[in-house]
């Protein structure tokens, strides 16, 4: 145990937190009690022999027929490419690995597969591909004839499920900006029906398929990706609960915890997400980043002082605060509730502390996981952490 503790301290010392040491010293049984059960269960850990930290990130696979829009999705969501520029993207000819570790919570890789590769061939290393994969996003072009895509999808799912039963399957019915509402519904129903029939024939009734209607020309692709990413975050219930508590005690209508770079929300409170609200919040982040990259004295556009307040003419207020280096909380609230700004700010600080606590635990469990791999002697799965309540 001693050696584990020592290495933990080393890990954490890079993390700038003196508080962390204190609490750690106070509680000797810390690593045991705060094991992260959910982390192992959700299929997020990898092959036992994974050693380097880059391999421990869950992978999101982007698959689909060629010209279905996979690379465009990746460019728009994670590289801030303007949607109309994606027209000029070359078709992808080899697997493109993309590390998304801009946010500590969203640490994963996206593998953009070229559509023409037949990865079902025996020569293809499916264990390597699907083994450490957290979610498989299958992109279907809604404007095209999707018979071929469905066949390929079925084969992919069967193969991937065999290799890794924990994989989460997401179907993006893509490019719906070009079709009418009715045919949107119709193709969604059709795809849903046929794919579940196909999988039923193959004996895979239990597989959880999620369908999303997406387009890169509005925010639907961001929302769909948010849903995908959220499923890969084991702490999501905790984060969601924190948001709930925060908004209820501060008189806020809706709060999003955003990953600033990609504008996907990694958690929100449990009230329904309204698309316009989400778009407003996205636009606010864009605006804040753009403005502060012009005027900030440091080179970073987003830092601990980042905050913004926008009053809309319908008596609502958009309020943005920095949570940590990568995350921002964007709230929408009515103007009269903003009278109690002190309370909101205080609650926010509690919220931020709680988030950083969750964040710390995650790092620890990650470090512990690595040690486990080396020492191979510690395999306890403790309960999830108690929710810190403001």
């Amino acid at each position, binding site marked *: 145990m001693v050696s584990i503790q020592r290495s933990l301290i080393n890990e954490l010392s890079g993390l700038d937190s003196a508080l962390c040491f204190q609490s750690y010293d106070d509680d000797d049984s810390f690593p045991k009690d705060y094991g992260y059960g959910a982390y192992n269960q959700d299929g997020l850990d990898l092959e036992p022999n994974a050693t380097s930290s880059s391999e421990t990130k869950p992978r999101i696979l982007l698959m689909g027929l060629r010209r279905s829009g996979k690379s465009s999705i990746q460019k728009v969501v994670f590289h801030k490419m303007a949607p109309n520029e994606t027209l000029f993207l070359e078709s992808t000819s080899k697997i493109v690995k993309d590390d998304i570790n801009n946010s500590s919570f969203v640490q994963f890789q996206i593998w953009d597969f070229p559509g023409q590769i037949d990865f079902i061939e025996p020569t293809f290393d499916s264990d390597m591909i699907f083994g450490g994969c957290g979610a498989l996003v299958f992109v279907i072009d809604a404007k095209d004839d999707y018979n071929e895509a469905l066949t390929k999808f079925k084969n992919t799912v069967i193969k991937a499920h065999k290799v890794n039963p924990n994989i989460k399957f997401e179907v993006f019915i893509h490019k719906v900006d070009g079709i009418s*509402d009715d045919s949107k519904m119709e193709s969604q129903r059709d795809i849903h029906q046929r794919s579940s029939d196909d999988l039923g024939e193959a004996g895979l009734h239990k597989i959880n398929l999620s369908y999303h209607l997406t387009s890169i020309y509005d925010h639907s692709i961001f929302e769909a990706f948010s849903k995908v990413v959220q499923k890969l975050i084991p702490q999501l219930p905790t984060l969601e609960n924190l948001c709930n508590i925060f908004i209820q005690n501060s008189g806020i209508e809706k709060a999003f915890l955003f990953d600033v770079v990609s504008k996907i929300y990694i958690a929100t409170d449990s009230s329904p997400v*309204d698309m*316009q609200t989400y778009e407003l919040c996205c636009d606010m982040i864009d605006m804040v980043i753009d403005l502060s990259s012009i005027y900030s004295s440091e080179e970073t556009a987003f830092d601990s002082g980042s905050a913004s307040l926008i009053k809309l003419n319908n008596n609502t207020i958009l309020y943005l605060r920095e949570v940590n280096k990568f995350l921002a909380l964007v709230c929408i609230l009515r103007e009269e509730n903003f009278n109690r700004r002190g309370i909101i700010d205080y609650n926010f600080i509690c919220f931020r502390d709680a988030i950083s606590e969750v964040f710390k635990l995650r790092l620890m469990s990650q470090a512990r996981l690595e040690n486990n791999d080396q020492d191979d002697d510690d395999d306890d799965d403790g309960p999830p952490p108690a929710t810190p309540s403001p």
Partner: protein
Amino acid sequence: MPDSMEDPATVSLRICLEGHANALALNKDYTQIAVAGRSLLKVYSIDNYGFTESCNMRGGKNQNLSYSSNDVSWSTLDSNLLATAATNGVVSVWDLSKFGRQKQLLVYNEHERTAHTVTFHSSEPNILISGSQDGTIKCFDIRSDKSVNTYFSNSESVRDVKFSPHTQNIFSAVSENGTVQLWDMRKWDKCMVQFTAHSGPIYTCDWHPTRNWLATGSRDKQIKVWNMDGRPGLEYTIHTIAVVGRVKWRPERTYHIASCALVVDYSIHVWDIRRPFIPFASFNDHTNVTTGIAWQGDSHCLLSTSKDSTIYKHAFKDATRPALKANAQGASLGRHGDISFAQKIKEYAVKTSGVTNTKTTSFKSRSKTPVAGSMQFHLDHSKMYKFRLKDVEPHSQALSEHESFIGCAQDLLISGKKLADLCDHNADVCRKYGKHNATTLWNFIKLFYGTNHFEPPFEHRASFSTNSRRATQVQSDWTMPQRGEMGQDLNGNNQEAPHEIGADSSVDIDDEHEHPPTSSVILSETQILSEITFDNFELLRNGFIYVGPTSDVSKALAFPALHHDVQAARAQVDLKANEHEKSPPPHVPTVLKVPHVPIPMWEPHKFVADALMLQNDVGDVQTALTVIIALGEARKLLPLEDALVEHWFHAYVDQLHRYELWNEAGEVINRSWLRSVRQLNQQSTTMHTNCGKCSRPLAGHVGWLCDKCKSMQSAKCCVCGLIVRGIYAWCQGCSHGGHIEHLQKYFAQHSKCPTCGHLCAYS
């Protein structure tokens, strides 16, 4: 149902709550209402005059998160049992017969994420189910402290669960991925039916009380009604204006359903599902988003909670009826000049025939095809007419684009006549060259601007509520019947005497009595003001003129429904001209609005400007610019930027030049009022002249004096030898020339230059 039977005419009542209310539930007798919210869980008993608090389960200051409720449900059999679903996933069961802390009978802490909904079984008193954000539905038996069954919906989040009233043990679950599932309670491994219902998250569902129908409401702003017999089939779709939060079927009415929105729209709408675009009734009392609705037993009372911390009990008779205010007529103009016109048949048959007549006057001949489509709403019939303009000339589609451009450029008149005549002429020209859009536009211009002499004060219409207005003039107007086609004459006259009214409006009324008019009296707004209290000023300042028998005027003003009427009418001010035949509200027979008077306030300027921009955008700068020029001074009314117009000028002149239509281009430039365009005529034509003797360019500044050979020879006519004053015709080939009339005569007989024998081509 003790209350509503004896007195269904209750008014809406309102009490204040602390904090937001998220949901409400009624007990089985409809005598008590439970309201749940963030820091609130209370039971009120309902009586005819309001609500009285009978139980508060959130006494004290304990901030236990398990009490912060998303949903509340009342047992359908036991009036003492309540269940709540909390944001942290806890489902609690409350027993109202107990005291203090013991009221909270059971706490199930099983959902990992927020519990969204909870509901009791309709016949088994001990069974309840809950749906949660974690995608599971759990079934609890209050005799045990653990869940009995868990149903995995395979979706991100279950938003609503409801037991079917028709089949025992069947419940529906709707989820955020847009699917509806039917579960049999006894089979927890797999759902019976699953289908995709909406393209967005579904937030609510409700079973029809008598038919096997399920209504679902979604983020895609639609309410859909599904027939659940056998394979689920879509029966009706209602399009609302906002995200649907809750839906509730109205008891005793097969086709009525109430809905409230999650954002934007604060009112509760009751829809007739057979009329999916206009709500049958609306309650507009809430000042924030409505969160919960329930019918109080019968169909006449609707209870609702809202984020504005109130409970309302709405009496159905107090609802507004948007459907009645809707405009039952519609007209549209086709690009070939056809008109289609739809109307409600029942009440206005006589009136509409008149309208069609006035419209027909401007057309030469038409084929009338009545009752092309007869749409049937559940009570109303509507009829559609289509008037087709008979083709006067054969279609000239053989003309290519540049041919029609040249033709139009040569034939279009831009000045020299009255605007109406210009418009007529130009419309004919456009029709001749196959430009039907432009024809329609010219016709419109004639209608809007052709009938009147435009003076700058015309702009006073822009601010309609400037209230110094023209009582005396109105009076003089109705003595001259049928004045002004679009009411514009009326307006033009009125501006002359704007200041006389304040003092003598009462005198006017007396005057009216002296004239026993033929059928009607027109009152101006100032007169109305003099009769009613000052409080109503706001309602009336939109300026409506009322028509009716004189003796009835004061009575009509005292009529309580007037306010209603005025409010309805206010929304109409900004309607387009097409829609101006508004139906008068049938229950106010003595107060009628004159359609002609408010409508002239509609200003076509913006509309015309848009039309011109559109013409330009589709590549027809010719029409756009010609219209502007033809309008003359009236063009100043159009909200068009000078820079844009200047650009049009340049574009059009450039086009004309390319087709070598120099005269037309010159005409256009001459008509321009922009300096930069007018200058084109002075700067663009440069003639390079040569000395007739030495053939050097005449670069000097002294006219025809050659710098090189110091000769004035070039200034002289080569026929008569005199110095030319006035027009000097000149051959570019040999640099000799002279008086144009001399050269004309000369070249009529000769073909060579009189000086050098050059073969000049005189044309």
